């Protein structure tokens, strides 16, 4: 091998995703985000925190759908699994009060196992069939929560769920949760982008583009599918814990099909496979309806029209991933 020139070295670093001074860019991003609650007031901080939960969910589902190309319409199930696992072990329901910070990894693990559980029967399915089965899975979980009265308290839900605390400090105001969720979003975005730019991410991308060819190039397709389900579910599980702790009470109806659809929509609007896209998608899809509150009854009509117009002019989303842009063009 010849000696690589400087330009090539730079190329390698760019490909590894560590271009420029990352700390500077991170600071430039973090400072305004941290100051935001001081500027916008309680109501909007609350809305932003809500958007943040959807960002975590979106980044997770983006692993399954955007990276690995597995259309999952039952994603809300893992959100519910995370929320209920926390709710059951940190509320008066059974009298357990496991600390929030311990429950984060526990719920992530439980949700991942849920992901594997869903993954195994659908390993050999593709496209539409996969979508239908996952859709059913989401419904099953919600119906179980609704009917296992002895365990989940049925439609009456779980109440007085413990808020997170750090030593003597208890999370209570929207601003506290805002920072918690911001940290969650950053961690999620970091994890997902690292995964994407790795051997694992390449294997997912190859599988998404041509599953048979990927297998014949040495990728264990079954394993990587299960991994995509499990990791996607893991994010939802963490999102669920934060959601349950923040709401203080959860009900089966919090985990309806609409959540799955919203999360999928925000990925599509933002640009499939792209993490900045997911973030923007969540801001648009979850944030804009709040902005449009002034339109009262016409709010959802205006919102729907915006979505239709957007999809006409930018069918691959606001900020599509480079890889998927090419795929779209070819189809």
């Amino acid at each position: 091998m010849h000696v690589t020139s400087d330009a090539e070295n730079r190329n390698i670093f760019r490909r590894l995703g560590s271009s420029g001074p990352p700390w500077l860019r991170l600071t430039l991003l973090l400072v305004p985000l941290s100051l935001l609650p001081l500027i916008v007031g309680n109501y909007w901080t609350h809305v932003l925190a809500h958007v943040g939960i959807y960002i975590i969910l979106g980044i997770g589902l983006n692993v399954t759908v955007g990276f690995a190309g597995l259309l999952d319409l039952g994603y809300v199930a893992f959100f519910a699994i995370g929320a209920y696992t926390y709710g059951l072990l940190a509320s008066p329901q059974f009298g357990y009060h496991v600390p929030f910070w311990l429950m984060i990894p526990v719920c992530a693990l439980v949700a991942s196992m849920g992901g594997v559980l869903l993954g195994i029967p659908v390993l050999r399915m593709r496209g539409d069939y996969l979508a239908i089965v996952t859709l059913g899975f989401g419904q099953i979980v919600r119906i179980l929560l609704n009917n296992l009265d002895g365990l989940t308290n049925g439609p009456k839900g779980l109440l007085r769920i413990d808020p997170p605390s750090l030593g003597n400090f208890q999370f209570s105001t929207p601003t506290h949760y805002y920072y918690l969720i911001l940290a969650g979003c950053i961690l999620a975005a970091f994890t997902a982008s690292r995964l994407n730019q790795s051997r694992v991410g390449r294997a997912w991308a190859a599988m998404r583009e041509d599953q048979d060819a990927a297998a014949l190039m040495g990728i264990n397709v079954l394993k990587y599918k299960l991994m995509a389900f499990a990791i996607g579910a893991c994010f939802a599980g963490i999102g669920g814990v934060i959601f349950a702790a923040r709401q203080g009470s959860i009900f089966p109806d919090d985990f309806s099909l609409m959540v799955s659809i919203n999360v999928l929509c925000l990925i599509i609007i933002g640009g499939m496979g792209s993490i900045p896209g997911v973030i923007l998608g969540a801001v648009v899809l979850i944030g804009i309806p709040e902005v449009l509150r002034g339109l009262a009854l016409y709010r959802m009509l205006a919102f729907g029209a915006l979505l239709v117009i957007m999809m006409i002019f930018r069918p691959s989303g606001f900020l599509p991933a480079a890889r998927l842009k090419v795929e779209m063009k070819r189809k």
Partner: protein
Amino acid sequence: MSRLQHHALLEIQGLSHFFGGLQAIDGVDISLSEGLIAGLIGPNGAGKTTLFNIISGAYNPTHGKLLFCGRNITGRPSHRIVQLGIARTFQNIRLFPGMTALENVLVGRHTRMRAGVWGAVIRNSGTRREEHAALAKSEEMLEYVGLKHRTDEPAGNLSYGDQRRLELGRALASEPKLLLLDEPTAGMNPRETAMMTGLIRKIREELNLTILLIEHDMRVIMGISDRVTVLDHGSKIAEGTPEAVQKNPAVIEAYLGKQAGALRLKRRLRELPGETDGAPA
């Protein structure tokens, strides 16, 4: 290593494969020793690509055995077979069109890497080293097949000939012992064909590989192969040096004979209007 020389690299024993009631492969035996370029020819539908799909683990054969380096690999999943050292290209190019040329080759490298989820997220020194080594190796492979200048181009944007060469680079990145090439020069112009033929020879000499290739271009196959196997209707009908195979009457019958037959038929059809004029069939 010395034991390897006693074994054939790839041994196909009594292989049969059915698609439902259709027998695509019928009791084929092929033995491939190390360092050979072996050609696989036969008329359309003879079962050549099916044989490739079986060797690479896409299909599980109905009967028979596959031995690779003396080890039974029958029915192993394809990712295991790649790991053992068999890589392939496809008759109709199967690149990952949205991924860059480099990423395609990196996917080929997958099987020689170990990084899992933790390594990917934490990006510890081991993973970083592995990733850098893989990048270096993949860039080397791109240069080897002459696509260095297209490194960051999405594979789907490459020209047809470049795509064929990229497939070859992707296969080579897995460091195979045996390379299966399914019509590597199909659809190429004479200049591209010559380039590809040269590349295949170079690969054999420099990378010390064994190559099994399917090819329809007789000049290519006769010029490049040390040995040729002929399939017809799923059975092996001849095997030997290119010269011997060309003269084999069974081959001429199955392969060239059909063409001659077709020519005769065409001539007859041209005569038909005169013969049937006014005379209903």
